[in-house]
């Protein structure tokens, strides 16, 4: 997966793509075609939903796939309920705690490993091994230790966040330009000043990429944990509806999880655009 790519250009690449994909920045300035380009994805999405609705109504789809309108109705009924609110909150809480704990741990370890080559040499076989173990694998042990509590979500969420953050930060720290490091030393900056004014800003594009990868991992892990075990959250509700064959409600919750993912990505993108306005990929687009 993405976490495995060693790419100093990764942030630049992902960000450039987005900056260029922004409608309205088309240098030819053809307004009509860019408006069409903006509307087209909505059109195809709606068309697909209509096709789904028709196929489902015509009983081409099995009964496990209800019509879109029924899902929408279920969603509208579900959202105001107390149970839904509690589950949504539980999922968000596990997501946030997991991302924070794992993210901060990943950054700290990444900076340490990048700054102390010996540390990296001593541990990198172990790290390369651990990073490819999917976080959910630890679920049975954690259920034994903690029971079906939110704690399981926190820990495994953090386990999902830590690797992309650690490796992105590490690549960032080792990639700080030699000239900038020389500059910091020649002008007598102390180690903490160099960290604050040179290393951390230079690493921040890498951290941003790590954060986005980590966030999507954490959402997947947290939801999966809830589906498999009975840790409270949207995932366990999805599992419950599915096993009782209440499909419209189940899909309604899938829609909510998807929306959470979109919102999270949108928020992180906004944050990135603001914090990294100086970065090559945002210079023209973001200012």
């Amino acid at each position, binding site marked *: 997966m993405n976490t495995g790519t060693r790419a100093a250009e990764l942030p630049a690449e992902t960000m450039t793509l987005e900056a260029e994909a922004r409608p309205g920045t088309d240098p030819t300035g053809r307004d009509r075609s860019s408006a069409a380009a903006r509307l087209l994805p909505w059109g195809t999405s709606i068309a697909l939903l209509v096709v789904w609705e028709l196929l489902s109504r015509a009983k081409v789809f099995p009964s496990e796939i209800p019509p879109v309108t029924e899902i929408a109705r279920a969603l509208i009924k579900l959202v105001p309920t107390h149970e839904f609110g509690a589950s949504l909150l539980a999922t968000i809480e596990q997501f946030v705690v997991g991302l924070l704990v794992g993210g901060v741990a990943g950054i700290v370890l990444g900076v340490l490993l990048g700054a102390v080559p010996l540390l990296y040499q001593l541990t990198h076989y172990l790290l390369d091994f651990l990073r490819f173990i999917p976080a959910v694998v630890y679920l049975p042990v954690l259920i034994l230790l903690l029971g079906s509590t939110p704690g399981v979500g926190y820990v495994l969420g953090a386990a999902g966040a830590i690797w992309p953050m650690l490796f992105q930060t590490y690549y960032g720290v080792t990639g700080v330009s030699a000239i900038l490091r*020389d500059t910091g030393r*020649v*002008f007598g900056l*102390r180690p903490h000043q160099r960290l604050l004014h040179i290393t951390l800003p230079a690493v921040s594009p890498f951290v941003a990429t790590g954060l986005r990868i980590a966030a999507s991992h954490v959402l997947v892990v947290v939801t999966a944990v809830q589906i498999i075990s009975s840790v409270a959250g949207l995932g366990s509700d999805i599992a419950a509806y599915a096993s009782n064959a209440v499909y419209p409600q189940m899909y309604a919750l899938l829609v909510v999880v998807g929306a959470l993912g979109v919102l999270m990505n949108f928020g992180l993108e906004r944050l990135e655009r603001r914090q990294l306005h100086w970065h090559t990929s945002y210079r023209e687009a973001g200012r």
Partner: protein
Amino acid sequence: MLSVEHLKKSYPHSGGSLEVLRDISFTVEAGEFVTIVGPSGAGKTTLLRCLAGLLPRSGGSVTLTTSGRVVDSPPPEIACVFQDYSRSLMPWSKVGRNVEIPLKNKIRERGKRHEQVERALREVDLDGFADSYPWQLSGGMQQRVAIARALAYRPEFLIMDEPFASVDAQTRADLEDLILRVRHDAGLTIVLVTHDIDEAVYLGDRVVVMSGRPTTVVDTVTVDLPRPRSQIATKALPRFAELRTEVLKLITRDGAEVTA
């Protein structure tokens, strides 16, 4: 005064080692402008990083004779302008911050620090650009920011690594004259490396000529041209052409080619 004695530097290289500097000795008197010419790849950047205490030597010594201190780590008396200005400035900080951050430990008081930043930017004709980002400026302006940063630091020694190599000819001439002017005003001691013979003769009091790798000092040429120097008048002097030829001969005798 800066004294370099039998400086040697080798890099580890695929199992063995790559000998870059074989035997470099020269001195720089207080207030002097010493230029060092050498062919590309001779180890000019390597030499300057050793002088600035950024790179451990393989042998010999670099001494600041005023304080009697051996340069093993970057001393507070030295500031540098690096070869690649676009990568030596911090793109996330505005021009003013770029100049100010190095002063943090030298000048505790914020107001005084800002004053010094402003003065340095004025010296390189960049007043009014403190709130721009470096990447919003042209190459020549960015190099002036790097120069302002070094000047604001108020060093005794200014060490410059081909500071004008990547700008156009007109900007280059302007920057050369800028350096001569601020050097005069601030009473700086300057060591500047270049692979351009004209530049070395035009700027320097003395030109240290280096051979190709493994590098030694071929000879030192004293530049007895009058100051203040001028791009047109100085370069039109017969003596300028003589010195130029002398340096060129020293370099070609060594068999290395250099852009003249």
